[in-house]
């Protein structure tokens, strides 16, 4: 080829730039379009226009009758929140035990925990529906937290065990030879260093239960309906209210923006720690 190496490097650089720009457009475009639609006046919603008078009408509408997105927002926050608050500490205790102690059947038990991740939710949700019907837990926070734990708990145990495995045991052993009890070691030495891992696990668990759709669709009716299920109530008799879906979608998205920053950092930290040595 007649192209000089320098010129070639130049072309490659441009191509890379274009590819990145296209990628960002593909990934961010749909999200941006949801935001835009949520602040469009009704007359502009079904057009491609980018210039319009922004309005908060859609947000006003979703909080009123018959949609009550405020209540649904509260349900979503409560259910995801309680799921994380119960799931993560329980998982942390189990993860520590898995990571630090020798036990009979430990490997089998741990593989069992992992295997539960392979169970399709549709298998579990049928019996839950029948059980909850009998226990009067359909359409309640308690029921929803219970079933969300089935997604969150095995995942959190697995993630936290991986995290604790990377913490050297020497400090704990030194403290124990100095006469500290195991519980004190856990409280004073292990807990402080596991905080970042707990935080990340908590975020993942929150995302999972915040975004759950199948369980909430089947196990809630009116009182405990969460935000994602609310979306399907906008397919109304007068037609699909896309602008209201977009406004509700904005609420579903907001916490994710804050969260994604931390998740990205977690991944890249793990990656660069290995390579900068």
């Amino acid at each position, binding site marked *: 080829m007649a192209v000089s190496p320098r010129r070639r490097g130049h072309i490659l650089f441009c191509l890379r730039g274009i590819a990145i720009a296209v990628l960002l457009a593909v990934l961010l475009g749909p999200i941006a379009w949801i935001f835009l639609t949520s602040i469009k006046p009704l007359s502009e919603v079904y057009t491609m226009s980018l210039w319009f008078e922004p309005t908060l009408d859609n947000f006003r509408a979703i909080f009123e009758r018959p949609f009550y997105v405020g209540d649904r927002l509260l349900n979503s926050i409560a259910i995801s929140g309680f799921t994380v608050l119960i799931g993560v500490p329980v998982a942390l*205790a*189990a993860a520590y035990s898995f990571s630090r102690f020798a036990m009979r059947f430990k490997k089998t038990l*741990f593989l069992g925990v992992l295997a539960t991740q392979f169970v399709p939710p*549709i298998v579990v949700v049928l019996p839950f529906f*029948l059980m909850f019907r009998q226990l009067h837990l359909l359409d309640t926070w308690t029921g929803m937290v219970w079933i969300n734990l089935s997604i969150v708990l095995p995942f959190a145990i697995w993630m936290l065990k991986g995290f604790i495995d990377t913490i050297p045991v020497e400090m704990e052993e030194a403290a124990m030879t100095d006469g500290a009890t195991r519980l004190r070691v856990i409280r004073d030495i292990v807990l402080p260093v596991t905080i970042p891992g707990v935080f990340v696990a908590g975020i993942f668990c929150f995302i999972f239960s915040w975004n759950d759709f199948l369980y909430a669709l089947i196990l809630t009716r009116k009182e405990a309906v969460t935000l994602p299920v609310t*979306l*399907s109530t906008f397919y109304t008799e007068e037609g699909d209210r896309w602008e209201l879906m977009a406004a509700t979608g904005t609420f579903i998205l907001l916490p994710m923006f804050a969260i994604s920053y931390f998740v990205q950092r977690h991944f*890249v930290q793990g990656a660069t720690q290995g390579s900068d040595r």
Partner: protein
Amino acid sequence: MRDRHLKYLLMMPAFLLVTATVIYPLGYAGIISFMDWRLSRSRVPTDFVFLDNFWRAFTDDPSFLNSLGVTITFVAGSAGGAVVFGLLIALLLARRGRTYSVARTVLVLPFAMSPALQGTSFRFFLNPEFGIFDAVLDALFPFLAHVDWLGSSGWAMTWLILTDMWHWGPFLSLMLIGGLLSIPRDTLEAARVDGASAWTSFWTVVLPQLMPVLAIAFVLKTVFSFKMFDYVYLLTGGGPGESTSTMTYYAFRMGFTAYDMGYASAIAFVLALLLVGVSAVYFRLLFPKGAAG
């Protein structure tokens, strides 16, 4: 307290919760799948019918056999597609520097976005009259101007797969970027000094080193593709016809529109067994010495 007791005590809450949330329902579902139980007729199971539900699925229900094929198409398409998409993104963005780390922040967003919201919005984006995807595609490829994206079975499946790839590709790429950045630079430089082109060093150096991560990404994605429900429900509704009705969706319909609990459980169980079978094969291939732990 002695470690001997403590280790079990720490494990106990998790053990009880996993039992209550997964193991017990699983057993319950297993029992129901042997029963004749139509919720519309009876509050309790009426008959023990042993394997009748399974027999019915495989011999007397074209819709079930269809859902089996749809599931396999979707899993193959979306697992393969998401891993390839993820790899492309990773190759593009696995570099040091501020621009790249900002770009990587964006990669989490599609994964963190609720699949339900994604399904509903993509449905609107694909509307032939006012959808943004439709408008952009029509402008780029005029010969596609009159396609009703979700109205033809081939396109509906394609969009189901693309929607899923949009969600998972960027997330998988984060795993792969970790793998790419940890390939020692010396190895790559050595290849370059030896006169290898970027293309050759990708196939001979990068890909082999990345294999373990790629394999894990592929297994992970396969499992999640089998479990996918939200997009079918909100994007295509299983249609047109039954062309995107996966096993998960079909089991859901049997359970909650036909209220045939026994049959729905049987279908869900077939799905679970299929998933176990596929994962077993993967693990055999990936960890030949049983080193999975």
